[in-house]
């Protein structure tokens, strides 16, 4: 069971790393236009925009049926084990945002449709030419220690992020306080996703408490503007929150407290949920958990629908070294023909995983519908192998985490590859080895995690660039693909950008099969009992929920 945990940690850290990295501008110049969704960034968001965000939340919960009951403690079970809960700059892994949002809040947030709305900032203005971002703060907001949340505090917090070298803030040149409730951020160079990075991924601590109590205390406690305050943190065991009395919204949070229990073993976690010992289970995006909970009517699975924080998972061959059989594109294509991918994915995930044959997820704008893809054709695979000089096959390895699905899929894939002469032995690895291979390359087949998100060009860059952070050292970097990528980055308007992204995907998948065979879309999934209302798990963003509006209807 222990290995189950490593696997989940592995997949989730991948997700988080992707997201965290998305704001990180690669070395290449970054003149891409704003991402598609932010149409309305030009005119200043009015006061009522941010207000609507709050009302939307409360309205939606009312509709949840019956009059809101306050009080009680929400019991949440999860496998994510943070080492720091309070000192926000050090919370790098995005799967820990679920903890941050209990005690802290960000300037901007999203609505259900995925559009950016205000939270601590009532208005914001992004000036591409001057490469500045100006935020108008909501007034009358205090930290948990009673001190006011003002521009000074925002400036101090952003500087903390810069100091710890966080990727989200390395594009910031300087931060100025215009007046008590207005802050302007000067960027080094304009990058459309910087707004999202600063607005969503920075969480604000109370400077006074930090100066008073110091960093050691702050790591294990919290003092923010969020609905709750950390009351007890036993790393690897439990995190306990209690109500923040002077929360800015009257009457909220409805709950008295939240008890996070950290599980070492995912089957024990699902058992705990089934036995009613936990009310909510976060990051259950493992088909085995979903299968386990199948048929239990009063447990509802929440999944993200607007594509934010979703990733696609596939099998990527190593193609960097000459000596590696997969160096030859024909062999990589043979790999794609040799296996009946549909059957494996649908069977082993009990139908929970949605198939995809390219980087983007189905339904997203960048999803190239007329991509040829590969059908199951072992004869063609053998022919391609013979052409490439591997008539009698070769030996290789499939590295896999130990989750039920990945381990079974790896075993199934190796069985089908054997029919075409590729004998691939399965080797189970732990999280540490996975990180190491992703960063420094590997030889053989390994699982490929690609963050889909809105801006495909930006995320694919993380892999395609010669010194990209993920998988770059394990694969080739064909020049024509790199040229296309730069065009995408420089594309002025949306339609040309999407068209270029389609061409890139055709070249990478149909022609080079550079990223091997993508298999399924893996979106973070959270489970809750029906009596847990207003939690909005993964509604707005795959990794967030709304602790303030959660209440227990029992």
């Amino acid at each position: 069971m222990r290995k189950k945990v490593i696997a989940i940690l592995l997949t989730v850290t991948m997700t988080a790393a992707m997201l965290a990295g998305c704001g990180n501008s690669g070395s290449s110049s970054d003149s891409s236009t704003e991402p598609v969704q932010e149409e309305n960034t030009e005119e200043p968001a009015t006061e009522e925009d941010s207000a609507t965000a709050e009302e939307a939340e409360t309205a939606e919960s009312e509709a949840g049926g019956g009059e809101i009951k306050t009080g009680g403690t929400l019991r949440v079970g999860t496998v994510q084990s943070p080492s720091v809960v309070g000192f926000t700059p050090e919370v790098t892994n995005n799967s820990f945002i679920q903890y941050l949002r209990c005690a802290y809040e960000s300037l901007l947030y999203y609505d259900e449709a995925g559009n950016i709305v205000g939270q601590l900032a009532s208005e914001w203005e992004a000036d591409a030419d001057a490469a500045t971002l100006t935020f108008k703060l909501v007034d009358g907001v205090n930290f948990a220690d009673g001190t006011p949340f003002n521009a000074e505090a925002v400036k101090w917090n952003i500087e903390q992020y810069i100091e710890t070298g966080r990727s989200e803030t390395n594009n910031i040149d300087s931060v100025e306080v215009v007046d008590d409730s207005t802050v302007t951020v000067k960027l080094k160079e304009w990058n459309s996703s910087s707004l999202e990075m600063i607005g969503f991924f920075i969480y604000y601590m109370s400077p006074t408490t930090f100066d008073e109590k110091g960093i050691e205390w702050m790591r294990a406690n919290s003092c923010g503007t969020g609905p709750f305050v950390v009351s007890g943190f036993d790393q690897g065991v439990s995190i306990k929150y209690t109500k923040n009395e002077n929360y800015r919204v009257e009457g909220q949070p409805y709950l008295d407290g939240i008890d996070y229990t950290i599980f070492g073993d995912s089957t024990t976690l699902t058992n705990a949920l089934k036995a009613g010992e936990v009310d909510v289970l976060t990051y259950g995006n493992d088909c085995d958990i979903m299968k386990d909970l199948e048929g239990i009517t009063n447990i509802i699975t929440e999944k993200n629908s607007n594509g934010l924080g979703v990733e696609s998972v596939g099998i990527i061959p190593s193609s960097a070294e000459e000596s590696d059989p997969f160096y030859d594109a024909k062999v990589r294509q043979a790999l794609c023909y040799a296996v009946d991918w549909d059957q494996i994915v649908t069977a082993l995930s009990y139908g929970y995983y949605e198939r995809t044959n390219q980087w983007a997820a189905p339904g997203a704008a960048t999803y190239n519908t007329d991509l040829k893809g590969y059908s199951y054709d072992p004869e063609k695979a053998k022919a391609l192998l013979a052409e490439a000089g591997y008539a009698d096959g070769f030996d290789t390895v499939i590295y896999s985490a130990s989750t039920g699905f990945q381990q079974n899929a790896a075993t199934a894939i190796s069985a089908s590859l054997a029919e075409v002469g590729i004998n691939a032995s399965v080797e189970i690895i732990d999280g540490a080895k996975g990180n190491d291979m992703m960063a420094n390359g590997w030889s053989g087949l390994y699982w490929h995690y690609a963050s889909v998100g809105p801006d495909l060009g930006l995320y694919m860059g993380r892999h395609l660039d010669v010194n990209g952070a993920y998988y770059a050292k394990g694969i080739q970097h064909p020049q024509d693909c790199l040229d296309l990528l730069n065009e995408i980055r420089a594309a002025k308007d949306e339609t040309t950008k999407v068209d270029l992204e389609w061409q890139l995907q055709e070249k990478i998948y149909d022609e080079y099969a550079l990223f091997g065979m993508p298999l399924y879309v893996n979106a973070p999934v959270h489970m809750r009992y029906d009596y847990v209302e207003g939690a909005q798990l993964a509604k707005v963003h795959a990794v967030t929920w709304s602790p303030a509006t959660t209440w227990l209807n029992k």
Partner: protein
Amino acid sequence: MKKEKEAKVLTPAQERRKQFLDTFFATIPVRIGFGIIAVMIVCAVFAPLVAPYDPYTQDLTNMLQGMSGAHFFGTDALGRDLLSRIIYGARASLSVGLVSTLIAGSVGIALGLMAGYLGKWIDAVIMRVMDAMMSIPVVILALFIGSILGKGLGNIMLCIGIVMMPGYARMTRGQVLSVKQLDYVTAGKISGATRMKNAVKHILPNCIAPNLVLATMNLGTAILTEAGLSYLGMGINPPTASWGAMVSDGYRYLQEYPHIAIIPGIFIILTVWAFNVCGDALRDATDPRLRGTR
């Protein structure tokens, strides 16, 4: 069992063997136990012939099937036949048990002999090292060594072997110390045997019996330790079938498909119980004091 043998005179050696076997097979549990071990060995050695299906072929169409005519014990999460996997699992478990016991036995007995026979500071050093190894709990030491050597059948065998070594060393040392006092060892010295010959010819043969008993018991404990390691994720790499791995994989499906986890567990219990019972019987059969007073 008791065919009427005509009273032909047996040679002394046959007589002794018959007497040994009578004492060994005296009670019913031992016969059952011996039967189980025999069956397991047959499964392990002739797995390909005995198993109805190939344990590794996956049939994704009928995954997680219950017990049925085609698949006696049903199928697992990848549609592989559980009965065949259990038969091949016997091969993995018995080989782990056997090889690790051989490793532990040979090194352990050698150390015990040296400690017992050469005595004084060699004895103190060896025994203290053995005490130290014994004070680190078996599971933790196995995890440690397992993560150094890495997973895989060979490494698991070596790892369990190292962990069980102190038991043999201690047992042999005690035995050597008591045998060393006996007159036939002094007689050996008087009739001209050198120290080495005395040790090998007189002392060692008389220390083997209790070690044999410990070895039989250890075959059982080795299988249990391997199962434990598989459960903790340190066991044998898939797709090799090992009972421990099958139980820990089956835990997730315990509610709807309990057979996947429960049946391999039962096989572990049967085999380990068989080894323990035979170990007890062996001790009674080789213990001269109890001979004949069943």
